[in-house]
């Protein structure tokens, strides 16, 4: 069964090659990419079941024994991330196919889109299953390289401009990460994460702190933590709707995943180079508050959602910084919740843009009457993100707050207050979108009604102040969005089992010695 792990990467890579060859035949491409991602979804479901039943699977690539060769490790956390990202990738692909059929592929040129999208999937999967720092870097580069192409699809002026910011920022973060790997290798003589974890205990505190900071810098730019989050709201919104959706859902979470691994496996709080919990809490607080204040003044829904995306990364960092099993448990649940709900919102906004012809709430109106189904598809994830019970956003936040309250300490209480405020402000921003774009009557906009309130909203820099004629909303796009909404609701319905799984995951992650033993001293995986 362990042969399934490399397939997670092989299938999308081979699919990308096949999709590139079949460029002139759009139908073949669609069949290849949906087929490939369906296969990975099935594999990741099996892997999750297996990881939960039997514990972590360790694969030594090419049968080179552990500290020398590259290892792939699939534990519960990896498997959860694999399954969630597969589901998201597949739904967004279906959405993109629907859009491509309707638009005659003007917005999403299919010949390039499908191979690149599969490469992106392969990069994300590599990042989740690798047990080797340098391999993680390679995974990051695969997914970043694909994301450069996807973000600048069709090469319009706005996308090239947004893409430039994104690409240069990503290059800098990669340079940080690679330099950090070089330093880790110089200090410990290995890039195998388990062996690094084993040897980091012998390092002097100053050296370990330097390594820790370097790694965190690289990852925080990718995860868009506060001082390094400026690039995100400027670059994501200009991409085609499906691309924005998948980026918002997955790319930052790969950074968060890497941070969680760094904090739990490599630099535990009591080891050398640890003691980063309190600074991380402040970073989390600033990320939350600054992000949501940015969202509160945006008129463009896509920009607004990008700011809430930044803001909610803060919750996950809060959970990591707590470093109690319950905190990690809530973080795992929150990551899953946030990936699905943020993707769903961006997909729904893609539909809104097609009907309304714009994404600026100062010009949208009356969507509830015009498209009630899409209004519902926006409303449910919006309430969910805002943390209204009984949705998963509420459960995730409640888990974090309980974990924080159990830990205590004044910094934690400041964070708890900050996260409640952030949650309320998220709700405020999203309900304003609801009120203005969906609920107010069309006559109000047509009469040219302005108020000081509307005038305080900040339009997107790319906004041309016009409303395009509405496009059709193909059934496939609506179906994909509906599917994602159902997934977000399932997170609520299955919250009990999921939190139980999260609990086992947190225990597994926190047990460093078990991970190290599994990778290094088990004598290799059975073939």
């Amino acid at each position, binding site marked *: 069964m362990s042969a399934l792990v490399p397939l997670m990467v092989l299938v999308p890579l081979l699919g990308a090659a096949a999709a590139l060859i079949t460029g002139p035949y759009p139908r073949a491409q669609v069949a290849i990419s949906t087929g490939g991602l369906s296969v990975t979804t099935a594999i990741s479901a099996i892997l999750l079941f297996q990881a939960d039943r039997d514990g972590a699977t360790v694969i030594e690539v090419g049968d080179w024994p552990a500290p020398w060769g590259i290892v792939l490790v699939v534990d519960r956390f990896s498997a959860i991330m694999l399954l969630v990202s597969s589901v998201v990738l597949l739904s967004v692909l279906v959405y993109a196919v629907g859009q491509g059929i309707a638009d005659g592929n003007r917005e999403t040129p299919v010949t390039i889109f499908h191979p690149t999208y599969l490469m992106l999937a392969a990069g994300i999967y590599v990042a989740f299953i690798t047990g080797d720092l*340098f391999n993680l870097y*390679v995974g990051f*580069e695969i997914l970043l*390289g694909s994301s*450069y*192409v996807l973000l*600048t699809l069709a*090469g*319009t*002026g*706005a996308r*090239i*401009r947004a*893409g*430039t910011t994104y*690409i*240069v920022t990503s*290059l*800098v973060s990669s*340079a940080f990460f*690679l*330099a950090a*790997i*070089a*330093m880790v*290798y*110089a200090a410990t003589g290995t*890039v195998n994460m388990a062996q690094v974890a084993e040897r980091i205990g012998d390092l002097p505190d100053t050296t370990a702190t330097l390594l820790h900071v370097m790694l965190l810098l690289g990852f925080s730019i990718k995860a868009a933590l506060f001082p390094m989050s400026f690039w995100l709201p400027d670059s994501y919104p200009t991409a085609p709707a499906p691309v924005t959706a998948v980026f918002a859902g997955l790319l930052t979470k790969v950074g968060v995943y890497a941070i969680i691994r760094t904090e739990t496996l490599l630099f535990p709080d009591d080891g050398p180079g640890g003691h980063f919990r309190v600074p991380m809490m402040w970073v989390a607080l600033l990320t939350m508050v600054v992000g949501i204040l940015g969202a509160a003044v945006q008129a463009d829904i896509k920009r607004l959602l990008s700011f809430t995306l930044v803001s909610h990364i803060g919750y996950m960092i809060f959970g990591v910084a707590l470093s109690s099993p319950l905190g990690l448990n809530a973080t795992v649940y929150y990551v899953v919740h946030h990936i699905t709900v943020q993707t769903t919102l961006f997909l729904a906004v893609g539909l809104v843009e097609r009907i309304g012809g714009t994404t600026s709430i100062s010009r949208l109106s009356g969507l509830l009457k015009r498209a009630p189904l899409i209004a519902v598809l926006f409303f449910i994830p919006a309430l969910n993100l805002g943390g209204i019970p009984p949705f998963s956003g509420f459960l995730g936040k409640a888990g974090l707050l309980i974990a924080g309250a159990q830990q205590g300490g004044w910094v934690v209480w400041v964070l708890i207050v900050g996260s409640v405020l952030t949650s309320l402000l998220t709700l405020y921003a999203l309900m304003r979108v609801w009120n203005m774009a969906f609920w107010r009557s069309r006559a109000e906009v047509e009469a040219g009604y302005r108020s000081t309130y509307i005038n305080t909203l900040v339009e997107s820099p790319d906004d*041309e102040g*016009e409303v395009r004629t509405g496009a059709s909303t193909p059934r496939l796009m609506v179906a994909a969005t509906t599917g994602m909404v159902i997934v977000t609701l399932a997170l609520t319905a299955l919250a009990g089992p999921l939190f139980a799984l999260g609990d086992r995951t947190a225990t597994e992650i926190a047990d460093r010695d078990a991970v190290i033993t599994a990778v290094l001293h088990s004598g290799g995986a059975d073939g």
Partner: protein
Amino acid sequence: MSTSLVLIVVMAVMYASGVYVLLERSLTRVLIGFLLIGNATNLLILLTSGRAGRAPIWDRGWTPEEFADPLPQALILTAIVINFGVTAFLLALIYRSWWLARLGDQGDQLVLEHEEDKSLSEEVFSSASEDDDALNEALDASDEALDASDEAAHMEEEGAAEAAVADARAGRGAERDGEDDEPLGSPPGKGGAS
């Protein structure tokens, strides 16, 4: 483990100049900065492989002092390949950005003006793709001798592209001196001249 001081100094200088150039406005300089930083990082990895002048080959009974660590070299190779790919993409991005910048203020708005100014944008885009095609043809034919007709066609298309730009500028006459609309990256050389 002893390392070469010269390499460390070279690495530091490359990092410093790389960061300096990366912060420039022009995209071509950003590219140079990226290359400098990437290679400085490669040097940093190389520095971890120990004393210079040993081959990364091990034989039975050799002590660690007698050979260089091969892993950093493998890592550098991978990093070089990745940098190579990213550089290729950046060059394409710079070309595209330069093309849009040649149109001045209109470069950014071309797609959105598609409705009202269809003929202009179509002309420019078709000449841009002709330009690309010509470039591809030239690359394909680089093995063989470029025959005269190919070259003539190439020149013609270049001319068409220039004419399109000239048209665009003339037609749009009174352009605002863009403040924040300034094109991305300063176009090399002739971008500003009209």
